[in-house]
């Protein structure tokens, strides 16, 4: 009995150590962002948050257009998420519930496109953007990302199970055409699936770096990640300012994620078992 209890305490302590390692960078970023850089250099360094956050943010705002970059990132992440949710779920609904000539061939093709590494396409993609005159614009980030194979594949699995065929048949008898079946029968019951795909897409778009780094060439018009990276390059001795920027860039997503996390992690686990 006591041995079991001892093991239980040991288990919780091990788990808590893991949590500390997992969350420490967030705490330490906050410590650095709320102290002066000189505080970092004192021996021993300050280990607790200080009062300098607004001072550091002030310096951040004079050095880069932080909120402009954040607005760009929000616009891109929201647009990409909305487009992906619509296009992917509509295509997935079609693949899951309708038979049409060439369906299996098209779906097989879609699965094949999964395996193509994206770096093969990067140079020509940039050339295309130059020719479209989209370099430096948000269009270059939004349009190519508006639909993806992963979302269609994942939603198809989800819709096969979530949308009852009887309900679709009943809707058809009532005279619902294809798009109305999607809108009034499928959409209301696939909301949980959309939530998972939405979070994945939003997080991916918010954190995307390689493509924005290549295509956002105007230093006054960047996304958050690119702006952050350039700030780090240009002012890498002013730790407290850089960390204030990092904190502001990471916090919104961490908060949003924590709010939706329960359902999200459950769906991620389900998805892994299917794959």
């Amino acid at each position, binding site marked *: 009995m006591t041995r079991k209890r001892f093991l239980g305490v040991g*288990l*919780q302590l091990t*788990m808590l150590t*893991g*949590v500390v390692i*997992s*969350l420490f*960078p967030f705490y*330490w970023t906050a410590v*650095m962002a709320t102290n002066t850089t000189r505080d970092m*250099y004192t*021996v*021993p*360094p300050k280990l607790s948050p200080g009062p300098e956050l607004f001072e550091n943010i002030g310096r951040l705002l004079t050095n880069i257009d932080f909120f402009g970059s954040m607005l760009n990132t929000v616009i891109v992440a929201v647009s990409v998420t909305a487009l992906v949710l619509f296009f992917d779920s509509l*295509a997935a*609904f079609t693949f899951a*519930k*309708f*038979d*049409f*000539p060439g369906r299996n061939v*098209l779906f097989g*093709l*879609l699965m094949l*496109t999964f395996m193509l*590494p*994206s*770096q*093969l*396409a*990067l*140079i*020509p993609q940039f050339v*295309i953007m130059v020719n479209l005159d989209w370099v430096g614009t948000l269009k270059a980030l939004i349009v190519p990302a508006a*639909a993806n194979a992963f979302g269609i594949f994942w939603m198809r699995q989800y819709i096969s199970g979530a949308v009852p*065929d009887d309900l*679709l048949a009943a809707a058809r008898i009532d005279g619902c*055409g*294809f*798009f109305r079946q999607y809108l009034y029968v499928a959409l209301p019951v696939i909301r949980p699936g959309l939530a998972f795909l939405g979070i994945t897409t939003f997080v991916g778009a*918010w*954190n995307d770096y*390689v493509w924005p780094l*290549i295509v956002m060439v105007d230093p006054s018009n960047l996304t958050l*990640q690119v702006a*952050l*990276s350039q700030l780090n390059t240009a002012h*890498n001795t002013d730790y407290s300012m850089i*960390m204030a920027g*990092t904190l502001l*860039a*990471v916090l919104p*997503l*961490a908060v949003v*994620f924590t709010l939706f996390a*329960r359902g999200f*992690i459950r769906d*991620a*686990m389900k998805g892994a*078992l299917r794959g």
Partner: protein
Amino acid sequence: MVSATPVTPADAPSPAASGSHRARRGRKRGLWSFWPQYLAVSPYFLLFAVFMLFPILFSLYLAFQKWDGLGEMEFVGLRNFEFLLKDDLFWLSLKNTFLIWFMSTVPMLFLALVLANLLNSTVRFTGFYRIAYFVPNVTSVVAIAIFFGSVFSSTEAGLINVILGWLSSSPVPWLVNEWTIKIVIATLICWQWTGYNAIIYLAGLQAIPDELYEAAKIDGAGPLQTFFRVTIPQLRPVILFTVVISTINGMQTFTEPQVLFASNAANAANSGGPGSAGLTSILYFYREAFNYNDYGYGAAIAWALFLVILLFTVINWRLVQRRDRTAKGGS
């Protein structure tokens, strides 16, 4: 907007049984009557054709050209690939990529397996633990790389060296030495992906039927025996999934070294730090293509890397297959 023709859903439980019937009806209806379905699946295929298929074919063409993106293209035959075979920096970047992949994947998957088993045997605070372990995975790599850059900094502000100082150990030049550079990058990847993999393993663990454990118990198996004879074999498909995902991600490592060493004044931009010890293949590709505007050579690097990854995957897959066959033969 709404189609007047009735559409046939795939509502039969067995598609094979009704397939021929539906196909016959489909042929009679004519392709045009399926326009809503084709319209619905078209956005992805259009985007794919324009932004993926065409670019990939174009990059194959580019690999045989010399082009800076502005002037005329010049056909150079296999010269890009000949140069690549003799390019020490390319081979170094491949070596770095594989080393960093190995140094991050092995501890990461091992820790994830341990963590998943711990998570599986806890009953309290499970929701909290899962969220806490998953959060690193949704955090941007740029932010984490900046954080690691400051913590492992060789200046007095670098936290790790400060702690080493307290332990009266001499400071380590983390971001200067060839091996510690790789250790820092591998640690960063581990920090970001261990929780993700643990959650995936946890899903696998929870899908193992209880009867198997009960049977093992009746047969008198100890905890270690149960782990290696029941848990690991049952987890095999999930472990394979995580190995595949880590391989794909590991071969694409770019942001970590790019952000960590972007500000290294002693080196050219995007050279992967001192001695190019953090120069991964994708970072090398990026530098050749977008810093030096050598599109032809960049495309050649991308294709060579693709072939290497393909070969690596096929070898891995063969190894797993063979082990599968011997395992089946043995039982």
